[in-house]
């Protein structure tokens, strides 16, 4: 259960939002909407503990996230604008190395299976820089699938994805929610997923 109370965010001299409350429970997801520059990304970065809020606090399972620190980060997965994919490495290497940095071993079979699921068969050993933008995002989707995290924080996960990949991602999120996971995401598209709520900022 993720709750946030009285969040406010100041960028430079501008106050982007103030007094923001939100709560996401198991099996629920939150769709953050707002105009460009309204502070959607800033909100997600605050929830992911990348930047501290100007006011307010974020709690995970009732405890402040700063106190939980590593425990919270283990339960949470954040995907930002940048792919967090290394261009020089192959999709397979990217997956296994990311897993090691996250503190768990990923065996090759599982990694391969995830890559195949997202249509990267035959691309496992090709450096990512030879892949198209959409294929790069698919590597990320594979990462979502292998990393066991209770809370997903996704910033614009649908950019650069084709229709098929959008369906795959929606399916993935649905599976995640059905298993009791939580998700917070920004997107310009509306998403036909159950248990969703919309937060407008």
């Amino acid at each position, binding site marked *: 259960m993720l709750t946030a109370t009285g969040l406010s965010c100041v960028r430079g001299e501008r106050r982007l939002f103030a007094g923001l409350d939100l709560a996401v429970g198991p099996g629920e997801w939150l769709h953050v909407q707002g105009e460009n520059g309204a502070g959607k990304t800033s909100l997600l970065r605050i929830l992911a503990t990348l930047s501290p809020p100007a006011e307010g606090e974020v709690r995970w399972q009732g405890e402040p996230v700063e106190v939980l620190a590593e425990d919270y980060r*283990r339960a949470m997965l*954040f995907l930002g604008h940048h792919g*967090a994919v290394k261009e*020089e*490495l192959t999709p397979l290497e990217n997956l296994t190395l*990311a897993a090691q940095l*996250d*503190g768990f071993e990923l065996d090759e079979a599982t990694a391969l299976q995830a890559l195949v699921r997202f249509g990267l068969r035959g691309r496992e050993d090709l450096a990512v820089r030879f892949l198209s933008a959409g294929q790069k995002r698919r590597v990320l989707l594979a990462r979502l699938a292998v990393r066991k995290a209770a809370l997903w924080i996704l910033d614009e996960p649908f950019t650069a994805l084709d229709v098929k990949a959008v369906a795959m991602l929606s399916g993935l999120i649905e599976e995640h929610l059905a298993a009791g996971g939580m998700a917070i995401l920004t997107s310009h598209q509306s998403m036909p997923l159950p248990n969703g709520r919309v937060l407008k900022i």
Partner: protein
Amino acid sequence: MSAIIAIIRRDLLLAMRRKSEVLTALFFFIIVVSLFPLGIGPESALLRKIAPGVIWVAALLATMLGLARLFAPDHADGTLEQMVLSPTPLGLLVTGKIVAHWITTGLPLVLLAPVLGIQFDLDTGALGILVLALLLGTPLLSLIGAIGAALTLGVRGGGVLLSLLVLPLYVPALIFGAGAVESHISGLGAGGHLSLLAALLALAVFFAPWATTAALRIALE
């Protein structure tokens, strides 16, 4: 611990895929050192005298070249964000990255230094001290440099600014490093210099990853 090893392996793998960058810094080092005799003259007594200083200054500059790319690529593609959010403490990951930086830029300099020392007519004992001093000194350069690299991350004119911030902090390493070889040559013994260098290294091992971590968090905020 396994995360440290993982990040070192990752950075070494990346360096292997971008060999040209590592080699560029190395050849820069060789060329800078080789230019000095051309500018000063081939008189071997003089060359012997300036050798430690020249090799050390070239080592400082060569380390600087790699520093700008210590965190910048990871920052640009978002992997740095993931490191901050990783359950592994950021300080450990940063230490791993610094170790990898040293292996790709510092260690080759240490290994090449004797060859360059021969160009400057240094005797075997002095070469040994030179290698030892560089072995203690180059990790220090990587550690201090990492702070500067983290501070200038994503900042306008970062590269030039980085040298402005870091080079003054390199002064003690330069003095004790080059001084070790000089005092050995002049018969005073290099022990004092080397132990001071080791003390600085010990201090930096504790202090630098902490400062770098703090700077990285600020850069990502």
